């Protein structure tokens, strides 16, 4: 961390933002690395409300409150702090590569998420699902099928990878020798091997629960354990509302 004469942060170690990708990092990586489990296997029940989850939350909020290596809201957004050269580290998705590819002022690289002390690794991975509306038929259905066939073709996925940075869904295309050895795509591909996908029922609402959980600790000084219990209750209510009875 660097400060100006008035004690204000001018650059930070880690760009922290629960509203960006940190909530994924906390759920699927930190909770597991602290020995816990974020949800039941069918993702219908919250399972992080225990000592492991509390330790994971405390570790995350300690980054700001105790170790002071980052500050939520610095440079408005985490990605802006990194892109502006004012954050040393950021945890973000491969979709950001297209934007970070425009950085000219400094060199940057990609690495896997840090392993826990016992070597435990985890990652959050998500994927797109393409579909055709059930009501379509005739020529429109044919056109949709044709478009879907193109969107999922190696050619289109290659364009998507180069422009946006998101990894192709076809393993044969993603796991090429060149991609695995690539210093930027390589770490993302390794992360896929031990990744978990959260089965969200309402990602925005569930993300808000995580943002609020951290804010209660950071802004109101609530004990992480109490904040975690409150979050678990709120998220379980969201899950229950979407689960078939």
């Amino acid at each position: 961390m660097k400060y100006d004469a008035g004690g204000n942060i001018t650059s930070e170690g880690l760009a922290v933002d629960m509203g960006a990708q940190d909530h994924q990092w906390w759920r699927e990586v930190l909770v597991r690395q602290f020995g816990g489990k974020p949800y039941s296997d069918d993702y219908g029940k919250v399972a992080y409300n225990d000592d492991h989850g509390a330790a994971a939350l405390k570790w995350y909020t300690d980054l700001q409150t105790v170790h002071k290596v980052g500050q939520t809201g610095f440079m408005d957004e985490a990605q802006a702090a990194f892109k502006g050269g004012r954050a040393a580290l950021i945890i973000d998705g491969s979709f950001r590569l297209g934007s970070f590819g425009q950085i000219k002022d400094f060199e940057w690289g990609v690495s896997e998420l840090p392993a826990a002390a016992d070597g435990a690794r985890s990652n959050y991975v998500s994927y797109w699902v393409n579909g055709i509306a059930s009501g379509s038929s005739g020529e429109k259905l044919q056109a949709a099928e044709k478009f879907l066939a193109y969107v999922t073709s190696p050619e289109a996925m290659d364009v998507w990878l180069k422009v946006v940075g998101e990894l192709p869904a076809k393993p044969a295309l993603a796991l090429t020798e060149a991609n695995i050895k690539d210093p930027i795509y390589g770490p993302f591909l390794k992360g896929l091997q031990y990744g978990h996908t959260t089965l969200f029922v309402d990602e925005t609402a569930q993300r808000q629960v995580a943002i609020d959980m951290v804010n209660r600790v950071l802004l109101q000084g609530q004990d992480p354990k109490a904040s975690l219990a409150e979050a678990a209750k709120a998220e379980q209510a969201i899950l229950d509302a979407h689960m078939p009875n």
Partner: protein
Amino acid sequence: MATAAESNRTAVAGRYVWNRLTLHHKQVVWAWLFLAVPVVFYVVIRFWPTASALWLSFTDWNLLRPAHLVGLKNYVKLVNDPVFWKVFRNTFAYLVLGTPVSLVLSFAVAFHLDKIRFMHGFIRALYFLPFLTTAVAMAWVWRWFYQPVPIGIINEALSAVGLPQQPFLRSTSQALPSVLACAIWAGLGFQIVIFMAGLRAIPTTYYEAARIDGVANWGILTRITLPLLKPTIVFLVVFGSIGFLRIFDQVYNMTTNDPGGPLGSTKPLVLMIYQTAFSSFDMGYAAAQTVVLFLVLLTISLLQLRLLRDR
């Protein structure tokens, strides 16, 4: 040939009926013909959606499956939802703080601007300019104003004079006034122009008579200017209140990375409706919130009109 003859006969009959109408009746027919356009417009664009929102609020519609009637379930959920009460308080905070502050500010500016001759048009245009700017662009500029150093101009200024930085949008207590300041500023130009029109409408003879009688400036303001501005004030109070109760653009754009501010501290009812409808796709619940907003707007507007109308 028969059809041609028939249509000819109908036309003749039609002309016969039309010619038998009195001038007054003809005027009525024409009036309704023209009125039909706005009537159809209002029925299709306003009343029908209002009625369907009311109906939806008693259903569990989620865009995908057909709506089922669930009775008062959405309203019961609303009453038991702590977020709703927080949002309800926020919405009233925008109203209770925003309306008087914006009125006093705009009146003060209009009152003094009215007396200035030097570059009057230019200064008035400057005040009106924010009203022409899109709310989204304005909200983002203000969002950056409020950032911590090194990008926030307000905190840069505070730091430069040795004062501590303020969290503004990252604070549960400062976030709502911060958003409100932007909203007040956005509407100020409009209120100033309306106030100035009201001030210009007061006959100068009243002021001259008061001065001859030796009434002090304060007396002129409270006995002549303000009472005669009453219609203008009533209009701006009602108009401003509705605006603050419906606040959305500023909040939505200034807090995208934590929608509705830290721990929901800036979230107004409209943002909650938006999230429930277009992020959680719980249309029935969102419709129930909309009905509540409608009732609040209706009650406040009727109350204000009753309290402020001429006795």
